[in-house]
């Protein structure tokens, strides 16, 4: 396993393409580097390939070609039995949340910690800690269908945080949320980033991207069309028009 040299990017994609089995080309020759503690917005129209890119990083899908490295590990060469350990380093908020409807809020979060076979006595305090970070104290015993969309989103974020991940991937964490709730979620991600975690967030939320002035990577039709630090949702040329 290649050691991570201090200046090597935490996440790097080189010439990565993804063609789904049905023939859909979702990514073409994508090259991207994300250093440690970066905060990156991934923007682009629906179907651009944002979710695909994020899914490749936890190897939910495999790249068709190109090289993806996460913390120095080449994902195409990562053995199946090492995959769970990669995933434990990454906190992922899925576009569709992927909460289990028959588990309570507490159990949904605890579940992610339990599968890592950690000590049971640390479980309860840890789950309570992340639930309070996302502001869900008092809702531990509710089930997902008893929660609002924003609350479900927070459960998904809490679950992604419970491992103390080094990388936090959020796929449209503000989709379907009202502006106020969206801002709360963004504040949360900023806090997470401030604690030293790299954050990559796929989003359609133009207002947030424009106000935040963070790094913006824009993809369209599976290709990176723009990558700027302190960017806006649209390219400057378009904005001035």
């Amino acid at each position: 396993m290649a050691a991570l040299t201090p200046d090597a990017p935490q996440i790097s994609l080189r010439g990565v393409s993804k063609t789904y089995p049905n023939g859909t080309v979702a990514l073409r020759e994508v090259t991207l580097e994300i250093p440690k503690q970066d905060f990156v917005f991934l923007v682009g129209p629906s179907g651009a390939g944002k979710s695909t890119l994020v899914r490749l990083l936890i190897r939910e899908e495999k790249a068709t070609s190109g090289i993806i490295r996460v913390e120095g590990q080449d994902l195409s060469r990562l053995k199946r039995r090492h995959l769970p350990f990669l995933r434990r380093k990454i906190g992922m908020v899925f576009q569709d949340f992927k909460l289990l409807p028959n588990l309570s809020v507490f159990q949904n979060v605890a579940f992610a910690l339990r599968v890592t076979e950690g000590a049971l006595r640390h479980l309860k305090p840890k789950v309570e800690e992340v639930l309070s970070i996302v502001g869900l104290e008092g809702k531990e015993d509710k089930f997902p269908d008893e929660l609002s969309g924003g609350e479900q989103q927070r459960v998904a974020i809490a679950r992604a945080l419970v491992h103390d991940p080094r990388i936090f991937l959020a796929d449209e964490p503000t989709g379907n949320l009202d502006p106020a709730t969206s801002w709360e979620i963004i504040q949360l991600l900023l806090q997470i980033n401030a604690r030293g975690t790299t954050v990559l967030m796929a989003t359609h939320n133009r207002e947030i991207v424009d106000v935040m002035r963070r790094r913006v990577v824009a993809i369209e039709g599976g290709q990176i069309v723009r990558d700027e630090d302190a960017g806006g949702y649209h390219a400057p040329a378009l904005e001035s028009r």
Partner: protein
Amino acid sequence: MHRLWNRVDFAFGSAWQNFWRNAAVSIASVLIVWVVLLALGSLLLVLHSLDRIVALEKTKASAISVYLADTTPLSSAMDFKLHLEADPRVSNVTYVSKDQAMARFRDLPALDPSVIDTLGTNPLPASLDVTVKDIRDLGAIDQEVRNSPLVDKSPATNYEPNVIDKIILLARVAGIAGLALIVGLTGLSVFIIMLTIRTAIYLRRKEIEVMKLVGATDWYLRVVLAAMLAFGLLLGSVGSYLGVRRFLKQ
């Protein structure tokens, strides 16, 4: 140590939760396994007793009485006995004298002893009771002894080929049918258990997918699934054990 305990605790905790959440399906699969195990268990019991009955009938039927002529001296009878005992197909030969035959006859139930007393002389012949190792050799032995001058002619033996053939046939049919049923039911149980496993995995596919995505190892998933199944099967087995016990008590 706590890690192992955590695994076990979660596996069983999860199995328990899942059992009640998917109660309908869990109970249905447990019941199916229960019924199949019960059927298999009772079939084995029935076959076992049938086997014992057939074995008993076979030992009873694999003996013939060779009736000796009243003129045969005891020494010749003993020589004949030794000759028969030397035959490798024969397992045992017992000499029954005229008096012993009469005593046996008297012991027969539903027979009025006074009838025998009116006879005056003893009409029953002495005999050699020959037991063979394999019931199928009985016919050949019967043929051989009939030719001996020492043997009575009316009748020579109590050999009844029809009965023997029927017993041989019954034993064979029972054996084949029992084997076929065991193979069939075992196959059915394996099939149902595998179907139950697949259903369990199918019902939990979302859970399994999410577990994988948050970093569960394959090994961990296997433990959790095995625990869920073991739990279901345990319930099924306890159920069928209780069922068989009730069935036996009746």
